């Protein structure tokens, strides 16, 4: 069997890539994708741990996380569409009227 730590390492790598995406990309939609990547990475770790412990709990937790992710994406994309309508852009860098 593949050791759990391998999965954790993989999930950590994916998680960090997600973080990097949030920090580097300017397209709000891609930013969202990066957040989804982070959540998926965490899910992978959860499932791996569930396998290690031979317990269902971890998998159920993943189920909840996926649901919440879907909800967040729905609201987020709706907001993006709204912003696009008024500002004609999906570039997060162009939205910085609030500062100081």
């Amino acid at each position, binding site marked *: *069997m*593949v*050791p*759990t*730590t*391998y*999965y*954790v*390492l*993989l999930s*950590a*790598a*994916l*998680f*960090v*890539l*997600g*973080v*990097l995406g949030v*920090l*580097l990309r*300017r*397209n709000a*939609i*891609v930013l*969202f*994708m*990066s957040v*989804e*990547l982070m959540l*998926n990475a965490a899910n*992978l770790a959860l*499932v*791996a741990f*569930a*396998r290690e412990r*031979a*317990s*269902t*709990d971890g*998998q*159920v937790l*993943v*189920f*909840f996380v*996926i*649901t919440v*992710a*879907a*909800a*967040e*994406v729905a*609201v987020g*994309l*709706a*907001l*993006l*569409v709204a912003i696009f309508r008024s500002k004609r852009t*999906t570039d997060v*860098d162009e939205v910085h009227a609030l500062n100081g």
Partner: protein
Amino acid sequence: MELAIFIITALIALVGAGAMIMSRNAVHSALFLLLNFAAIAILYLLLRAPFLFAVQLIVYTGAIMVLFLFVVMLLGAERAEDERDAIAWQKPLAIGLSVILFIEALIVSFRNGFAALPELSAEAEQIGAPETIGQVLFSKYLLPFEITSIILLVAIIGVIVLNQRRKTVS
């Protein structure tokens, strides 16, 4: 054998993720992310989570990614990002910090060790079966389950509210 599958799938996942954050075109990003999600779904199978495998494919690749693509197309946001980065100084810092974060993850992992797992008993193989999950979901995790329904409801209202605007002159 399992290790080989793991390595190949992991590489696909990593490549998908890396290409997702690097590609200039949002549509490409979405497709690479799709690749990544599919790879993760396969890993779920390896990890004895058939139910999650299905959910991952249906919800993520089926619904969420379609939503992403839909919005990208709708907004015409697939065009490449402007080359000029207003806060370009942030890039090296961001990469540096991410590397540190990953090093921390490495430290954590190595300190935890790489003990191989014992094979699961036949009974334990059932941890990810839809039936088992359903049982746990509706008994122990009933409250969280109900809360997710409220969250989804709120999200639906949100989508409507945010985009149903009265025609007011600004």
